[in-house]
């Protein structure tokens, strides 16, 4: 298993080999955010009047019991759905005002997602999964292949480029997902329990990789986790409970 220093070196080489710097971290400003779901005909309030900030390039962990609304908060920050009420400002984007293609463009250019389930397309190889993010941003075929290889190499998986997700371990899948999240040079990386399905060693490696990404790219990292020791490593630690955020 490569150590953190090795990961840092590789990520640094990604930065150096690309002419355009990674997008600098995006500030998050949430005011009066309220969100609810309709279930069995009843309104189920998940988030209630949330206020919080994340500094540009900040590293924030959010913990909370299952069903507390952590993932919902992430879907709102990532522009996967519009908030019902309140203001979500990410960098210069006011997410209340975005919809359709604009929201897709925001996700494509500014957000990198790392899901608990990795979210890799099973029919594509590791390399093709990373390439997919470049494909959606309209990068030429030759350039995206080269960039995807570089990113896979950065997460230590160049040997596994032609393997499909089913042939990879859980940790490897998450590293491919991190490489894909890096593809857009996002200003904001949202990680939804990325270690939830991993053993301790793999979890440590994945978190280390995310932290290296955060350190070298200066992106803003919001990490949702159940693991207190991982949450404790963040600069800002928040606890979501009863639809409210409090410092952990």
């Amino acid at each position, binding site marked *: 298993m490569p150590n953190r220093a090795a990961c840092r070196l590789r990520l640094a080489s990604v930065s150096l080999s690309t002419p355009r710097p990674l997008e600098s971290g995006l500030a998050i400003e949430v005011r009066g955010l309220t969100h609810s779901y309709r279930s069995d005909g009843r309104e189920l309030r998940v988030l209630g009047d949330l206020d919080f900030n994340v500094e540009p390039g900040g590293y924030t962990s959010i913990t909370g019991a299952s069903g507390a609304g952590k993932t919902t908060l992430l879907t709102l920050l990532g522009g996967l*759905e519009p908030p019902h009420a309140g203001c979500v400002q990410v960098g210069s984007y006011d997410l209340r005002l975005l919809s359709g293609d604009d929201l*897709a463009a925001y*996700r494509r250019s500014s957000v990198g997602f790392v899901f608990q389930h990795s979210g*890799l397309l099973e029919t594509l190889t590791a390399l093709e999964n990373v390439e997919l993010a470049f494909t959606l941003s309209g990068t030429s075929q030759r350039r995206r292949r080269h960039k995807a290889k570089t990113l896979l190499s950065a997460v230590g998986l160049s040997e596994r480029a032609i393997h499909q997700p089913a042939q990879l371990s859980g940790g490897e899948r998450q590293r491919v997902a991190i490489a894909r999240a890096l593809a857009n040079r996002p200003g904001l990386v949202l990680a939804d329990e990325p270690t939830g399905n991993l053993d301790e060693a793999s979890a440590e490696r994945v978190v280390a990789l995310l932290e290296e990404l955060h350190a070298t790219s200066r992106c803003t990292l919001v990490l949702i986790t159940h693991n207190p020791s991982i949450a404790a490593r963040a600069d800002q630690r928040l606890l979501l409970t009863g639809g409210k955020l409090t410092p952990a």
Partner: protein
Amino acid sequence: MSWRDALALARKGVTRRLGRAFLTVLSVALAAALLTALLTIAQTGRTEVLRQLAKGGPLAGIKVVAAAPDPAQIANDNARPGPPKDLGDDAVRAIAGLPEVDSVVPVVTSRMIFLPPDPPVRADTPKQPSAKVPRFFFETMVGVDMNKSSLLPVTLLAGRLPSAESLTEVAVTTGYLERLELNPLEPEAVLGTELEMGSPRVFESLGDQPLRAQWQRTVIVGVVAQEAAPGQVLAPIQQATLGRDWTRQSDAEPEGDFSIPTSPYSGLVVVARGLDSIGKVRTQITRIGYSTSAPENLIASVQRYLRVIEIVLASIGAIALVIASLGIASALLAAIRERRREIGVLKAIGARDRDVLRIFLIEASLIGAIGGAVGTLAGALIAQAVGSVVNGYLIGQGLLPIDLDLSPLIIAGGVIGSTVLAFAAGTVPARRAARLPAKEAMGVV
């Protein structure tokens, strides 16, 4: 996302569930095969029926005879001609100059005396005829320009047509075989046999037996079915003209089996520019002063029935294709249910609704195109197989085999039609996929 990238993703999507993809493609292929086979068989049947009606000539062929028109018969397919009327080059030029006439082929007939060989078949023919061969018989030679045989109602049954310039080659009809009590189903038996023929002429100075003939030895090179003019021997036009000119020099009108011709041409085969022009051209030729006949009413009537058959057969194939398309829609809906999270992930990393729509529409079209291509090929093979069976039967009956009419239009229609139908069938599932919310990526409902 470009169409090319969408195609690459769609291709992966199709192969994701190989079994399901195979079954879906198979259903489209079977429908396309059915449609192709039915249309090919219908088209072939139509071509063959019309060819039979046209007696091997062009469908828009009109026969003109050296006779004035009978006003009461003008609209009839087989109009009875009026009194004889000379048909010469002036009339040919006038008819050829009509705006909707494509070509004019003159026909010259000559009444002749024929001396068949004894035996009248080739030496290597295993079965010799038992009947007695007549020493001679009177028959009509039909002379046409052999270079324009494709414009004439002439069908080659065995051997070949006489060379256009030859004075020693002829073809005979099955009527000749029947006259000699030969089996018309074995036309090859007379190929290569010699046939002597004489053009008669009356010499008044010879008293009681004034008839003399100018003799010519010819070889039978082919057996044909022909409707250019009544007659059992088909020859290049020069042969018939020479015989006719010789007979025309008779001093007196003969008695019995022949008369002295006066018209330079016995008739014409006029080809109109299309089936729709036949009636108009016939009217114009009637105005010029000659009697015509053409199976236009029969062809129009038969065509109507053939069209109904084609529509019925095409509808059966189309229904099968629609059912297959519903299969595609069902398979895609199932795929979308399975891939909700995958679609959500695509959107989470930046795919627009139209990117997702494009991927699924291409998936549907791919299934349709592959199924259509395979099915059309299979349909063509099925039609070939059916054609072989039919030809086996026809040949056994002594009839000409059919040529399968596998139109490029049917092939292109099979593939393109399947693809378009599949595309249409994929529209609803693809729109549903495109409308899935991006939050599906998180598993949040």
